[in-house]
């Protein structure tokens, strides 16, 4: 035992395994997505209120600045979706060994980044 235990725990200096990062980001992305529900419902309501409301929503969503502002939510959706599929895989006992779990976690995080970039690119184009 060291004589003086560390008094301050710095979370940034703790080692977190890839599975831990994946799980942390799964929660964070879920919270982000929940925060977007009222905005999405408001857009749905306006888009169905008539041709004028539909046009206003379409105009709002086609502004490049709005699309860029949506990037965190595009990433959140991609990450939550892919990490969720991995969770369902774990329920079926797929990818449980440590090496597989590390590889899958890193793979999901990378794939979420690539998929978000692809979706944003498609939307901006």
């Amino acid at each position: 035992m060291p004589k003086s235990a560390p008094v301050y725990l710095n979370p940034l200096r703790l080692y977190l395994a890839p599975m831990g990062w994946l799980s942390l980001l799964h929660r964070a992305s879920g919270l982000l997505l929940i925060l977007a529900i009222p905005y999405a419902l408001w857009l749905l309501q306006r888009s169905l209120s008539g041709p004028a409301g539909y046009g206003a929503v379409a105009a709002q969503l086609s502004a490049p600045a709005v699309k860029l502002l949506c990037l965190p939510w595009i990433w959140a959706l991609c990450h939550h979706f892919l990490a969720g599929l991995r969770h369902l895989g774990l329920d079926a006992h797929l990818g449980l060994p440590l090496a597989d779990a590390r590889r899958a976690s890193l793979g999901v995080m990378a794939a979420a980044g690539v998929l978000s970039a692809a979706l944003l690119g498609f939307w901006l184009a």
Partner: protein
Amino acid sequence: MKLLGASGAGTGLWLVQRFTAVVLAVGTPLVLGLTAFHAGYAAWRALFVAPWAKALWLAYLAALLAHAWVGLNHVILDYVHPYGGKLLGHALAAAGLTGCFFWVAFILWGVS
């Protein structure tokens, strides 16, 4: 074996989370596809007119809100430590998500 009481509550939430996850995994790409690729206002509105279409939309959004409830429940239980804070968090989440459910029903049944 206990048949009644709180011992099954966690398993129930776990099942709700997994069941709604499957619904969302199938439904969300469909919803995004319909949103991105429909042809104008008339086509968009037509997706919400039929009673079975309203029922499908409501089922999808109910799955979404139930999934959000289980997730928020976990986050509140893990990170909000004071008892009053947990209670407040659960109350706000329940009120907000239930409100969203009625809002969705109101939007859907307004399309005729």
